[in-house]
């Protein structure tokens, strides 16, 4: 009964001061939205990040650090220092424990997008997310030497469709002045969006990679030595080296054993890394920043809560009469104090509900744009336990900071008698 009375009194008091309190609640809503947004994005980005590659057991490249190898093969960031010999690749392909092996040959670009020389195995074996396979929205995977398959983002950005001809550039970089003019490629397929770096890349065959570099041995096209597509087809287009290889192991339990043997390969210095391990390593480094970001957002929420308390304290100066009447009608000092805490928690809860609606609405609007423009896949999902907990922390903290005006109200209601209140 007493609780119901306290609640109705608190609600009446809030309603009476709605104009001032609306502003304070709005500030709190915005900061809680920020907190919720950062936590939500943190989880989503992490998920999308760890989903970049799955199903590949080892990435093999020339000897280097595991992060470097992961970054240039999967994320297309940075460059390889060395290549691995084709004979080594074939040697690995002959290993019984290796289920499948896919070559990757990097180094060229198309309008700032990486050109990846590979084979049909990439389309068959590359997995992302929770083991999802690649699929084509249009056309088919390359079959001819001069066929090219585009990532979803490349096709969208440059408005390409199957049948288009395009000229690939020598070397990386957004603007390249040396183009493989003599060997144009024809678009045969466009990959479905994956939300991974696959969307940003251009895929050709190893033979295509070899063919467009005939006559480019010194790094530029030597007049008279370059060939036409037909002449190139007549040549032996077996590569001499590849940049890296993705490997699937027949029995996962053998992964460490195969890794160790590749790392000790006598033919040439190789590094075999576990992509899942390298990803968690990379996330551990990036995790520091996102934790710092969450910490800052937490501070923003606390600042807003303190702002709310400041507003409540200011209002309290005008509440002497109200307190006096409450006391005269038989309200105990503790009820008067409880009113303050209830008001504070109610406002924080309203802010949380508004923040939830604002976040969900904002995400629904922004997520198609994010996928379209930046290839980042962030969908709406029910909140995780940790996120609910974080949200619940806001009213809980509000109750704590609400104790300050409550204490003051309690003291005031004990010292100020009815005569004082009425006398003012």
């Amino acid at each position, binding site marked *: 009964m007493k609780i119901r009375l306290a609640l109705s009194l608190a609600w009446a008091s809030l309603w009476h001061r709605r104009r001032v309190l609306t502003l304070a609640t709005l500030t709190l809503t915005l900061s809680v939205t920020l907190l919720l947004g950062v936590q939500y994005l943190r989880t989503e980005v992490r998920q999308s990040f760890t989903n970049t590659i799955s199903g590949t057991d080892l990435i093999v490249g020339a000897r280097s650090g595991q992060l470097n190898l992961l970054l240039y093969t999967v994320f297309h960031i940075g460059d390889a220092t060395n290549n691995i010999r084709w004979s080594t690749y074939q040697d690995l392909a002959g290993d019984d424990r290796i289920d499948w092996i896919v070559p990757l040959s990097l180094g060229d670009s198309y309008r700032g997008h990486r050109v990846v020389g590979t084979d049909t195995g990439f389309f068959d074996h590359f997995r992302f997310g929770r083991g999802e396979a690649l699929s084509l929205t249009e056309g088919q995977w390359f079959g001819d030497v001069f066929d090219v398959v585009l990532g979803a983002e490349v096709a969208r950005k440059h408005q390409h469709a199957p049948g288009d001809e395009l000229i690939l550039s020598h070397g990386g970089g957004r603007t390249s002045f040396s183009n493989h003019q003599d060997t144009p490629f024809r678009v045969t397929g466009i990959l479905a969006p994956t939300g991974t770096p696959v969307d940003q890349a251009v895929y050709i065959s190893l033979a295509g990679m070899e063919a467009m570099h005939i006559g480019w041995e010194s790094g530029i096209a030597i007049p008279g030595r370059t060939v036409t597509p037909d002449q190139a087809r007549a040549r032996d287009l077996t590569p001499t080296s590849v940049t890296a290889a993705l490997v699937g192991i027949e029995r996962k*339990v*053998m992964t460490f054993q195969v890794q160790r043997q590749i*790392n000790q390969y006598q*033919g040439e210095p190789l590094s075999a890394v*576990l992509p*899942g*391990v390298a990803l*968690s390593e990379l996330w551990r480094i990036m995790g520091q920043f996102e934790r710092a970001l969450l910490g800052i957002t937490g501070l923003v929420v606390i600042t807003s809560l303190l702002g709310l308390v400041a507003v409540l304290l200011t209002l309290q100066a005008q509440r002497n009469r109200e307190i006096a009447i409450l006391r005269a009608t038989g309200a105990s000092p503790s009820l008067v104090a409880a009113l303050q805490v209830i008001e504070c928690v109610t406002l924080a809860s309203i802010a949380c509900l508004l923040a939830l609606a604002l976040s969900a609405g904002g995400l629904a609007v922004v997520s198609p744009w994010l996928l379209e423009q930046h290839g980042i896949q962030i969908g709406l999902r029910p909140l995780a336990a940790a996120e609910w907990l974080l949200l619940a922390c806001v009213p809980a903290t509000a109750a704590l900071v609400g104790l300050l005006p409550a204490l003051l109200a309690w003291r005031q209601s004990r010292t100020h008698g009815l005569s004082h209140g009425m006398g003012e």
Partner: protein
Amino acid sequence: MSHTPERRRSLRAAGSVLAISLLSPAAFGADNPGAHQHGHSQLQVAVEGDRLDLIFTSPAQNLAGFERDARTPEEEARLETIRKWLETNPLIDTASASCSVIDAVARQSGSDGDQQHQEHHHDHDDHKDEGHREYEVSQQLNCQDLTAEDRFNAAVMAQFPGIEVLSVQWVSEEGQGSVRLEGSQTGFSLQR
């Protein structure tokens, strides 16, 4: 100075063998010495059904407190106790202690008996047998009714406080991952 054709041929053969051994990738393709950092140990866990294959590598310092041959009977006994523990206790276990050791081999690298023997004959320079030593332990565990949600506890960290950091790498049918255990944090799960 003249050489017979046979001798010239054999010289050429020897030369090419030398050239191959110098120039072949094998000469530089081999492995670098492994990193050795006191306080840090590595554990690789491969999961297949209920079976876990573990490879644990650690500087001997973390386990025994010294990286040389045992000099006193106490030290010998300590090394023997460590070896026994490593070969009979699961390095990691579930909360319900459902893992049992099927097979285990603990080996200390760099403790070549012959080499020690020689050194002791040359002179009794104590420093000579002080090099970096590693423990390498391979264990096969059977953990009954293992599920993806199961949490593991690195018992080896509790047993040997010298292990300040344990880097765990794992592979299973579901995926791969790694976790870095430090100080009192010895629990981990095999989930991404």
